[in-house]
């Protein structure tokens, strides 16, 4: 044999996990929500999503090649995921230049400034979204009409209506008459950001990711469970001041946040117990902002705040060791 044998340390076989598989699995999981958004908003949602993806991929490529001077890794799919998630978090009528700006901030500041994939402490899509929300609040809260929603539901989102209604002194019963039914909320017949409105589509995506072992149940259940329980407590305490918990689960970005944003591997804790703590924290902050804060929706801020706690959670919540001497 003229050929040299290859020598390397064990193990000599490899499982079939890869970053590519994970990222493209997430993209597949987002397809139901994407399809629903196309149904509700028409071609605009496709346009917004494609622009966001293209901008994210472009910025990542340019920054990696010319500024960081490393080999571009856009084919691992992570920029595509960030792009789609950013698109899902904005209203479908957002001007193109704002989408591109959001992508620049999401990728450039949220991901690349920390060193690229695996180094960012915050969810990049959320960094982009919050930047847009705070800098351009009017455009970010101008909702396009949902084609399939019944008349009278175009305009403000259910959470927006709730906040405004409470501010102007209405009771819950008065506000509820203006809102879509629970079924409508679950299905998605309401206003909102591109990807957050259809709870059923998001749940389908979540189940797919659970099946493919891309995520585990801990973070989503912790977030949704905490929101449900605390909203439930508030509602039981004062049903005229607080909406019922099912309403809160199906409106706003809680579903999208719990299933796709909080489960971002890079910015969430590594251990299952850590993920539960993480999810509970997100849930509590969301409930606080929604019911007592100035903004109608709080999940984006909640996730970013808890992202900041992830290194602390990782440092203190260690996996149970085999044979630890008690």
């Amino acid at each position, binding site marked *: 044999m003229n050929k*040299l*044998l*290859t*020598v*390397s*340390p064990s193990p000599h076989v490899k499982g079939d996990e890869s970053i590519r598989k994970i990222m493209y699995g997430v993209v597949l999981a987002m397809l139901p929500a994407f399809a629903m958004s196309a149904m509700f908003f028409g071609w605009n949602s496709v346009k917004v999503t494609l622009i966001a993806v293209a901008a994210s991929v472009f910025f990542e490529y340019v920054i990696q090649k010319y500024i960081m001077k490393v080999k571009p890794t856009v084919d691992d799919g992570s920029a595509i995921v960030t792009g789609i998630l950013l698109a899902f978090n904005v209203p479908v009528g957002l001007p193109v230049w704002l989408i591109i700006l959001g992508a620049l901030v999401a990728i450039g500041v949220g991901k690349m400034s920390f060193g690229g994939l695996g180094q960012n402490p915050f969810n990049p899509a959320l960094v982009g979204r919050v930047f847009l929300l705070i800098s351009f609040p009017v455009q970010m809260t101008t909702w396009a009409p949902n084609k399939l929603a019944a008349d009278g539901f175009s305009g403000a989102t259910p959470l927006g209506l709730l906040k405004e209604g409470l501010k102007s002194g209405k009771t819950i019963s008065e506000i509820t008459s203006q809102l879509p039914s629970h079924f409508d909320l679950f299905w998605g017949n309401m206003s909102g950001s591109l990807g957050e409105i259809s709870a059923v589509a998001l749940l389908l995506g979540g189940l797919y990711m659970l099946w493919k072992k891309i995520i585990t149940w801990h973070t989503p259940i912790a977030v949704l469970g905490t929101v449900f329980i605390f909203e439930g407590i508030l509602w039981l305490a004062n049903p005229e001041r607080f909406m019922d918990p099912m309403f809160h689960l199906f409106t706003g970005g809680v579903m999208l946040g719990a299933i796709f944003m909080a489960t971002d591997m890079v910015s969430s804790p590594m251990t299952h117990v850590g993920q539960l703590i993480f999810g509970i924290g997100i849930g509590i902050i969301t409930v606080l902002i929604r019911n007592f804060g100035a903004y109608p929706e709080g999940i984006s801020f909640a996730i970013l705040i808890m992202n900041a706690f992830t290194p602390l959670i990782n440092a203190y919540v260690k996996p149970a060791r085999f044979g630890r001497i008690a």
Partner: protein
Amino acid sequence: MSITLIYTVVVLSTIGIVSAIILYYVSQKFKVHEDPRIDQIEEALPSANCGGCGYAGCRAFAEACVAENELSALFCPVGGNDCMSEIAGILGLEAVQKAPKVAVLRCNGTCEHRPKTNAFDGAKSCASASSLYSGETGCAFGCLGYGDCVDVCDFDALHMNTETGLPEVDDEKCVACGACVDACPKDLFELRKKMPKDRKIYVACRNEDKGAAAKKSCEVACIGCGKCVKECPFEAITMDNNLAFIDSDKCKLCRKCVAVCPTGAIIEENFPPRKIKTEEIAEPTSAGPDSTDKA
């Protein structure tokens, strides 16, 4: 001038003055009395914080100088003799002059001289590979070529030559701090006495196998024949475990050993070409370690 403005200015100024007074007294009361010479010595040091002196950084070395008050065991390789003279001046002691040193790689097993017997595919780290097995070639003692030494050098004095597969020492930049000596798992680096014009003579081999086995793995291995030991007029060469070693303190750079070495394991660097009597043309020897000179 509204009354609010006056109040603001007065209150803030009062807070500022009171704080300043409190801070001054506290800083005086809790002041750490340090020998001022430590600061002076630290100024004189090159601030490389490389650890070559054996202490954790330049400040620790400065503290040790003042504490010991005696410089025979203390030397900063980066600052060198000039720096030590200055420190001696500050402390009012005798200056200790040490012979400057330079790092030398005692291996010439280039890709050409030392054929590969297998292909390594693990993490490119010398320490990791060395603990796994003896390397990609038949010589278990030679350079692995993954650059742990290059990574650890703080002074940009080591660079990997991708053609030969060996790291090369930049004589100008090397300060003989010893980091590469510690980093190499095969103990290939040695801090040898620095000679004028950066001239060096050394055995570029660490192979302790018997002659035939050593030569089979690498063309320029030391086979332990002992000719150099006999030839050296200054008794600078010793033989141990089939491997020759030239003591850089005793070596007078006469080059007699280089001439008799049958494999070319002994390297001479930065010498002018020899005057030769035969028709054979000698190669210039001012190049790096992978050239040999057989007159």
